[in-house]
């Protein structure tokens, strides 16, 4: 019965985010033999996991404002999940991207290296060489404590091989 109340609260929270002011009610929920017990805060979604050993772990909830910020980031700023159609990379100039992106972020570097790999796959070795040399130069500028060694080695490999093809 308690769970039924929580469900109603959870649903109304999702549909009308403004119902967050209600008092949180934790609901103990057993998760089966020899596992653990979890409690869910019906308002914020905070989950308390009580392990068989007695140790308690709290998984943080999410306020209405925090969720709205995520919705804004996801739908408004990014237009949903990342979408990669075939040939999407033909529409993007990686050298321009190189000027815009923060190269200390690994995901940005991976994205740029992927342009180089695609050119290598397509046997467009001259373009691969040009882009690879520029990426190498820029990566080396931000390579602190040699943490990007593997990425730099991969670019060096493509540059070296592209010269020979």
């Amino acid at each position: 019965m308690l769970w039924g109340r929580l469900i109603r609260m959870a649903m109304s929270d999702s549909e009308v985010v403004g119902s967050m002011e209600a008092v949180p009610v934790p609901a103990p929920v057993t998760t089966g033999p020899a596992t653990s017990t979890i409690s869910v805060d019906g308002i914020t979604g905070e989950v308390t996991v009580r392990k068989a050993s007695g140790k308690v772990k709290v998984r943080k909830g999410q306020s209405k404002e925090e969720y709205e910020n995520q919705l804004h980031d996801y739908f408004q700023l990014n237009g949903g999940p990342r979408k990669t159609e075939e040939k999407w990379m033909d529409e993007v100039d990686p050298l321009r991207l190189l000027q815009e992106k923060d190269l200390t972020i690994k995901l940005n570097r991976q994205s740029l290296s992927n342009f180089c790999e695609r050119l290598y796959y397509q046997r467009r070795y001259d373009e691969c060489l040009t882009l690879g040399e520029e990426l190498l130069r820029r990566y080396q500028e931000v390579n602190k404590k040699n943490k990007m060694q593997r990425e730099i080695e991969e670019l060096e490999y493509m540059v070296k091989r592209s010269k020979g093809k």
Partner: protein
Amino acid sequence: MEKGSVLIPRPKPLRPHNDPLHIIKTRKATHKRPATIAGPMVRYSKLPFRQVCRQYDTDIVYTPMILAREFVRNPHARLADFSTNSSDSPLMVQVGTNNVMDLLKFVEMVAPYCDGIGINCGCPIKEQVREGIGCALIYNRELLCSMVKAVKEKYGDLVRLETKIRIHEDWDQTVKLCRDLCSAGVDWITIHGRTKNTRSSHTANFEAIRYVVDRIRDKQVPVVANGDCLQSEDVQKIAEITGADGVMAVRGVLSNPALFSGFKTCPWSCVEWFWYYTLEFGGLPYQLLQHHLYCMLENMEVPRNLIKELMDVKGTAELLDWFGDHFELKRYGEPGFATCVDIPWKNQ
């Protein structure tokens, strides 16, 4: 639909060609075979692999399990866990969750970009079970049914919702769970023929799936059978034994994405498609790329010494060259691309 200042898109419209429930219900009548489904694999069911599966008669493809808690809270998790495109359909997004709040938020964020959502109630990994996720849910009937009910009450037929469960030691418990899920509004149920504690080295129990199928028939909710679909001939066999409307392969398609097209071993064309899609969509983490190719080449019975060489290669470009050294690897657009079945050895 506007919520606060954020415009939230509606769930993606469902038509006969992309409605997974319609596909599962009609394949036996229209194609004389069960619906064919590539199941969710931790790490591996990313967009390039999903597109390869679709080249070979796979009706429905799943994403890897995405943790709702992380997805609704963390932009980096969203970027890492889910990418798609206009041809990524019919697509099921599998979610790992232990509460209604996160699930409803997750559905709100994902439903505009997929054709259905599946709740993972089968993952036996200790770390997830401890959190009340995956397999833990089959021992928590009330919670699981409340999650299904909450989504279906909010979205009705606008969102397809599936649960993927494992069997219990006591099959009647599975029957009870399935009947309750049907009453809660689940669109279909995928049943893995192993219990929480059955090792993958033990065979899946199709009789148990049949037992459940026979006892929920009156509910008219389709069942998909999962487990040990490793060869093309397994598809019909599993459907016949279990009476299921669809068959899900997981490890089988990882090694041979053309399994549902009737290929006994992975055709070379899969390798060429996989290389193309991986690089066309913007790459995969190298270890993923390497593991996919390892699984396919091993299935083709490439000699062990070459497989070992492949595993020693350290980067994407080097791996491309390794393929070029040993095989005639055609690029997309080149004559004969993705038409070869047998391994095109370089020196033959």
